[in-house]
């Protein structure tokens, strides 16, 4: 444990910017919307900004990404193929615990199963992660229900907790320790561990008054979803509200559906692209032949909630797929963000 003065905390970002492409929370001047994105200068980053509208997922899994390029020479009947891997070193500064947990879930999906996705691995390999604990939640948060916050316990190189005039700096890796030493941060005495615990408790206690948008008592519902004891008409009520926009997937820090497309370039070459996709889309789940499910929209919808909230899926991620960020709630043109769906199902249970 180390300490850095509040006004000096950006020195960490500046130091990282020397060797890494830097990403962090940025407030758009025009509308006040917060993005987690690339910055040219660490001064663009605002550590105190609210939970960003876009999670850092796109840093390791871009919305649209060139993964290969090829050119076919008709006369010689030869194709030139070139794999494209993003080998830039990236530093993520100020990621919040929910999104950090999201990153861990993505790691388990892309790296932890039989197949290792080398495109993802390349993004992830040289990454430096500085997380920050939430000393107070925001309106949309429910990470306490999904065991992913408000404080982080794994996955970071450095973790920051604001305690009065100081940030408590914890190193989670050798890379992290090395940076702390390079910056010459002073160590924190053991009493800070107790202060940090109190800050965590305080943050949790603030959920009741601040985090009022979404409440999702997940555990009961997980049981129900896994066992399938949910009435057809509940799914129908949910399904008919889906506008099939894909937003819930795009904004989710743990959703990993993708699509591969070939893009013919004006210069005669072809780019192979990987793009975000969504299980809410008919075309994503369309089966070969004439298969036409009876309740197409409902079936696709409950798929998402199985993925986020069933035990079978949790085994893959070693935790529930939802990290309680609340983003799918405010982007949904229907009224079926995950927290609302949990409410609808709970309502049925209590009935």
């Amino acid at each position, binding site marked *: 444990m180390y300490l850095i003065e509040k006004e000096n905390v950006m020195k960490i970002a500046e130091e990282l910017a020397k060797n890494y492409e830097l990403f962090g929370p940025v407030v758009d001047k025009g509308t006040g919307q917060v993005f987690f994105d690339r910055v040219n200068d660490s001064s663009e980053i605002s550590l105190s900004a609210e939970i960003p509208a876009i999670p850092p997922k796109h840093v390791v899994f*871009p919305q*649209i990404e060139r993964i290969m390029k090829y050119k076919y020479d008709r006369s010689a009947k030869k194709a030139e193929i070139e794999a494209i891997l993003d080998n830039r070193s990236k530093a993520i500064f100020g990621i919040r615990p929910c999104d950090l947990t999201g990153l861990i879930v993505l790691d388990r999906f892309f790296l932890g199963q039989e197949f290792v996705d080398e495109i993802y691995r390349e993004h992830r390999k040289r990454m430096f992660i500085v997380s920050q604990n939430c000393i107070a939640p925001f309106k949309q948060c429910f990470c306490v229900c999904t065991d992913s916050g408000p404080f982080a316990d794994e996955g970071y190189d450095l973790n920051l907790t604001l305690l009065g005039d100081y940030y408590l700096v914890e190193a989670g890796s050798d890379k992290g320790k090395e940076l702390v030493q390079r910056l010459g941060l002073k160590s924190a005495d053991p009493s800070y561990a107790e202060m940090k615990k109190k800050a965590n408790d305080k943050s949790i206690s603030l959920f009741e008054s601040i985090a009022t948008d979404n409440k999702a008592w997940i555990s009961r519902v997980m049981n129900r979803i896994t066992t399938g004891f949910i009435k057809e008409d509940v799914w129908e009520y949910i399904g008919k509200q889906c506008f099939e*926009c894909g937003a819930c997937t795009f904004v989710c820090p743990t959703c990993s559906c993708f699509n591969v497309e070939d893009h*013919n370039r*004006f210069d005669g070459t072809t780019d192979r692209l990987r793009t975000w996709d969504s299980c809410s889309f008919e075309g994503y789940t*369309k089966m070969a032949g004439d298969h*036409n499910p009876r309740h197409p929209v409902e079936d696709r919808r409950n798929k998402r909630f199985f993925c986020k909230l069933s035990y079978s899926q949790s085994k893959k991620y070693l935790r529930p797929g939802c990290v309680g960020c609340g983003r799918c709630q*405010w982007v949904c*043109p229907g009224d079926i963000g995950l927290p609302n769906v949990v409410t609808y199902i709970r309502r049925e249970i209590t009935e």
Partner: protein
Amino acid sequence: MDYKSGVCNFCGTGCGNYLRISDGKITGVYSSRNHPVSKGRLCVRGWHIHEWLMTDQRISSPMIKVDGSFKNVTYEEAVNFMMEKLSPYMGSSAKAIGFLGAPRWSNENNYLFMKLARSVFKTNNITLDSESGHRGSLNVLSKVTGFPAMTGSLEQIEKTKFIMVIGSDLTRINPIIGSEIHKAQMAGTKVVTLGSRKTQMAKLSNLHLQCRPGTLKLTIALIAKVAIEKGYMDKNSASSMAGFNDFASSLAAINMAEAIGSTGISLDDIDSVAKELCGSESAMAFWSTGISGADEDTVSYIANLFLIAGKVGKENCGLNSITGLANLQGGYDMGVAPDLLTGFQSYSDGAVRSKFEKAWQVQLPAEVGNDVYQLLENKNKDLKVLFVAEHDEGIVKYEKEIANLDFVVYFGSYDNPFVNHADVVFPIAALIEDDGTYTNTERRVQISQKRIQAFNGVLSVRELFSMIAAKSGVKWSYNSSEDVFKEIASLTPSYSGLSYDKLINSTGIQWPCNSEYPNGCKSFLLKSGTALSFAKVSGTFPAVNVSEAFPFLLIPGRGEYFWHQNNIMKKSYIPKREYNATLLVYPKGFIEINSEDAKKLQVREHWTVKISSDKGSMNVSVKISEDVKPGTAYVPYFIKEMITDFLLGHSDKSDMGLDATIPVRIERV
């Protein structure tokens, strides 16, 4: 940070977005949480606008057609070629030349297109493409309220107490407006939908009046009739407005029992809607305009119904004509019409015309022009030359008539089927390659700024048109889109208070914005002195008779699937796949029939049936659906080769807008 604010350019909702621009290239899109219309939402199209914007299927060089094939040339050469070919028509051009404008082009580009037509080529044959109904709505709204656009505001949907959605499935055509209505419903607003098919919007409503195909207008008339006869109406003001007696007596002439029978809706339902609408504190009507939208007569009935109910010009009320294309409203605002100048100013008004003559320093022809599609339809002999702006529909209407013209000029960014009809093709800068403003369905003027360099160095509309004007001896001196906008503001009373400065620092401003409304105007509110009046109605309702030979009423559904045949969707990945997903299951297209009818016809899901009408026949697959009632059938219009040919044979029906129906026979094959 790489995210830059922008505006979605697909439908008329005008959602705010953020485009991600990295190292001069577009790499993504995200929703805008604080935008007053979209509030963090986008639909499937909006979430993939970057896929369209990054396409390489662009027109990369000016081309001229020599001996039937295209040859790449410079802009200079193309302009010279064009002016030479056009010289025989230049003097008498008023009749020989037509201009087809683009409802997705910015206000600035549409304004310059209109100015080029009038001041350089001296023609008033100017028409907005891809559009058949919006003008009808504007005529009615202007007549009834003096306000030639949607009178309400999308931001007020959540505040209104009663919503009536007529015909279209807004959840598909303008999904974020559909979403706003859905959220209002969840919060307690009463939502009533009217239409012959149970759409998603209908499923999300409190009450769906599923009338028989072809009786939508009649249903609206019946609600008005009951409102008057049962005394639910706003007695204080409606009955003293101009035109009330005519309207009331045309309603009185309807035989209630007979009419109820033909709509297939119960009198109780009609009565309860009439009562609730009149009794509600505020109410809004929504209908789609443009392709497959409501026709002028139906809009007149809607407007009159709301006058009767006393729901026009009041807080949180609105007669809301919803545009399906990004700048359809803006296109009309810019005077892309044979008889209009900007801001719905009448071309026939001498004072208005001389204001433009003075500003443009030209003499304008005194006569108004003709609708270009009408000229094509009538195979008008005088029309020889056509200028076309970005025709992004996959289907080219009047293909034969266009092929018979002497010369066709095309301006556009994207490669598409229309290009082949042209004799000269000019590539132009696309969205975000130039600054421009767009006016959404609720009159919100928003700016979309230049974010990337133009593809392959192509010119902006402004640069190209200035070059063409200069060739004809007219000097246009604009250095930027902002210069064009200043000129628009100076000539257009409803835009006079707008400027790029104001727009850049806002999420759009709703016109009128002028000395009377310095901050714009959210919705039309009655002030003392303004008078409302009833719209004239036909008093006639199409007879929709099935016969023994043709026992089914077929609804040709175009609006819902309109985006399928839209050329820009084909340049994306995910939306293209989604719009084609239905095709994978029904490669020949489908006809929706009720399970009861399927039983009678002894057909099952996916079996092929033959559909015949008095004009022709086609074979399609069966899709069994409870969304249509027994005796009615629905065919989406989106597969060019199959269904379109059959439906184009019935193009006379498209004038009937929402009430278009075709009596058919369905047989098992």
